């Protein structure tokens, strides 16, 4: 994909350069593995301190500070410490890790090896979804190449440090992206998430040993933090939102795709870079960070106080495109998977589509999630098929409220947030369906196709 002039590329810098290949030669020609060579001459704690000082936040969903997570690892247990790279990339709307794995796998391997050295890890895993079979092959090949050159395996760069990386393929279950579900899956079981506490991976993770789980993009950033130094890294983005982020944009824009940017507003990404809505259409709403995030409605105002006491009053396009900016607008930047809904999209049908997803993907352990997601699927489905009932809108809110906060893992919020936020912002559309069995003006065939829920 061509690089847009407004992008600020760090992680995807070489990925789309003409002639750049996933093979180690390309990476080495661009200074690849120099940071690993540097890392193994450093004190591991100094690397952890640098990552902490960089304020790098996780790119997988929750945005937890990476260095802080590493500092929680139980180093006194005497058990081995594991590192797992989360390449499950299952959050609908997200397709950035795919680019890294397919186009620049060695950057990920270098980032992992730096992280492993810093945390005294001797065995690391990459958990990759089954739906990326070529990605798994590319990674296997890249690890072989890196082993041949002494970057992975025994005696890394002649330092005496040894660490192996194993690629593990999933089998098409979204819940494997949740870190404790992923660990269960890697142990050869159903991906049923574990209760936290006591199962915080940093203490009781893989095989009940201390374990670090980080996203692909997060781990790649370790290379750039060593390269630029924490201070240099923090110069990109706003305070507490350091570094670039790769945004995946899909849906109703002229140029969907993935874009890596520093400090920027949501409007610059959607209108300037992605070209805005298709001709003759307008943007109705945006799901900012993957399908579990609360929806933002075009035309709303977001008001509040900045940390310095000044006040902000933003429209959709003014929202700073980072963790804190999107949180201030009442949603989350999540995995960076932005879905744009234009004026042709029926909100109840979009919700029906997502409820079919969530009811399919619930691991089934918690009754509120298992039963609630299915119930929500049934209610949204009957709305779409012209069989809504007057009580449906309130019933949906009731069911969603019974799920949120009452489950083992955050999947429960992922089901409830879309329901609660779509109804809060587009209550008229839902009430219309509920009152008249369906929206009488709507194109029923198009709505069924959008809901796609059988």
């Amino acid at each position, binding site marked *: 994909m061509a690089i847009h002039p407004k992008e600020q590329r760090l992680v995807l810098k070489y990925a789309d350069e003409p002639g750049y290949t996933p093979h180690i030669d390309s990476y080495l020609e661009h200074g690849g593995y120099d940071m690993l060579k540097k890392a193994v001459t450093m004190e591991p704690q100094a690397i952890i301190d640098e990552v902490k000082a960089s304020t790098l936040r996780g790119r997988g969903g929750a945005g937890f500070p990476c260095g802080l997570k590493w500092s929680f690892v139980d180093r006194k247990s005497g058990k081995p410490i594991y590192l797992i790279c989360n390449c499950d990339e*299952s959050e609908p*709307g997200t*397709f950035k890790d795919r680019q890294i794995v397919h186009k620049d796998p060695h950057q990920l391997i270098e980032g992992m090896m730096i992280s492993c050295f810093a945390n005294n890890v001797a065995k690391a895993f990459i958990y990759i979804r089954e739906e990326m*079979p070529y990605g798994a092959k590319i990674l296997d090949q890249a690890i072989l190449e890196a082993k041949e050159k002494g970057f992975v395996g025994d005696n890394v760069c002649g330092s005496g440090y040894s660490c192996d990386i194993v690629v593990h393929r999933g089998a098409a*279950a979204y819940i494997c992206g949740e870190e404790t579900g992923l660990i269960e899956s890697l142990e050869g079981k159903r991906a049923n998430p574990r209760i936290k506490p006591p199962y915080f991976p940093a203490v009781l993770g893989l095989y009940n040993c201390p374990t670090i789980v980080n996203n692909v993009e997060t781990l790649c950033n370790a290379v750039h933090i060593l390269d630029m130094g924490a201070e240099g890294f923090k110069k990109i983005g706003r305070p507490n939102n350091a570094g670039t982020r790769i945004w*995946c944009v899909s849906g109703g824009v002229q140029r969907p795709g993935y874009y890596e940017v520093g400090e920027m507003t949501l409007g610059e990404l959607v209108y300037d870079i992605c070209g805005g809505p298709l001709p003759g259409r307008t943007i109705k709403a945006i799901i900012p960070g993957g399908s579990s995030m609360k929806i933002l409605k075009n035309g709303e105002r977001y008001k509040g106080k900045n940390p310095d006491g000044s006040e902000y009053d933003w429209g959709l396009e003014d929202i700073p495109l980072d963790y804190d900016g999107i949180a201030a607008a009442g949603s989350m930047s999540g995995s960076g998977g932005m879905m744009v809904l234009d004026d042709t999209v029926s909100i109840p049908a979009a919700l029906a589509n997502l409820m079919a*997803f969530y009811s399919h993907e619930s691991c089934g352990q918690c009754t509120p999630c298992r039963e609630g997601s299915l119930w929500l699927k049934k209610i949204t489905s009957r709305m779409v098929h012209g069989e809504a009932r007057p009580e449906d809108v309130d019933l949906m809110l009731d069911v969603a409220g019974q799920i949120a906060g009452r489950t083992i893992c955050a999947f429960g919020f992922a089901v409830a947030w879309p329901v609660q936020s779509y109804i809060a912002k587009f209550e008229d559309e839902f009430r219309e369906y509920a009152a008249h069995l369906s929206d009488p003006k709507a194109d029923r065939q198009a709505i069924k196709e959008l809901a796609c829920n059988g």
Partner: protein
Amino acid sequence: MDLKPETLAEIEAAIPKYPEAQSAVMPLLHAIQQDQGYISNEAAEWVAEKLGIAPINVLSVVTFYPFFRQHKIGKRHIRVCRTLSCAMAGGAKVCDKMLSEFEAELNQVSPDGEVTVEFAECLASCGSAPVMLVDEDLHENLTVEKAKEICDKIKAEAKA
């Protein structure tokens, strides 16, 4: 169990990669499904024995993960993404085209035995929606016309 020599080699190579044998369940199931097309009860028992775990532990994995199956499917496995970005871009029409070209029902082997068409959840390629996987190959930016071309190609390959 009648497994190809390369499948057996893959299995032997997978087990020592893990600190605990049970972790090799999924790699072994992947290898066997690739070899046999599905996971039979016999295969599940074989995996259990190989890893020194109970057959129920293997079966619970097989039945949890949508990718593992206990029955045969068509020669080609077609998975059309149905999640929101693909649905907004016309994924449902693409799926209908695949079904009608093979006179198939969703999730069923087509009458000629060539394909099984299924819906899949987000394939992590939403920027080039709608997309589908044909076996291991991802097809992007689909239209009904492109879907027809892919069907024609599959049919031609079936005859060859």
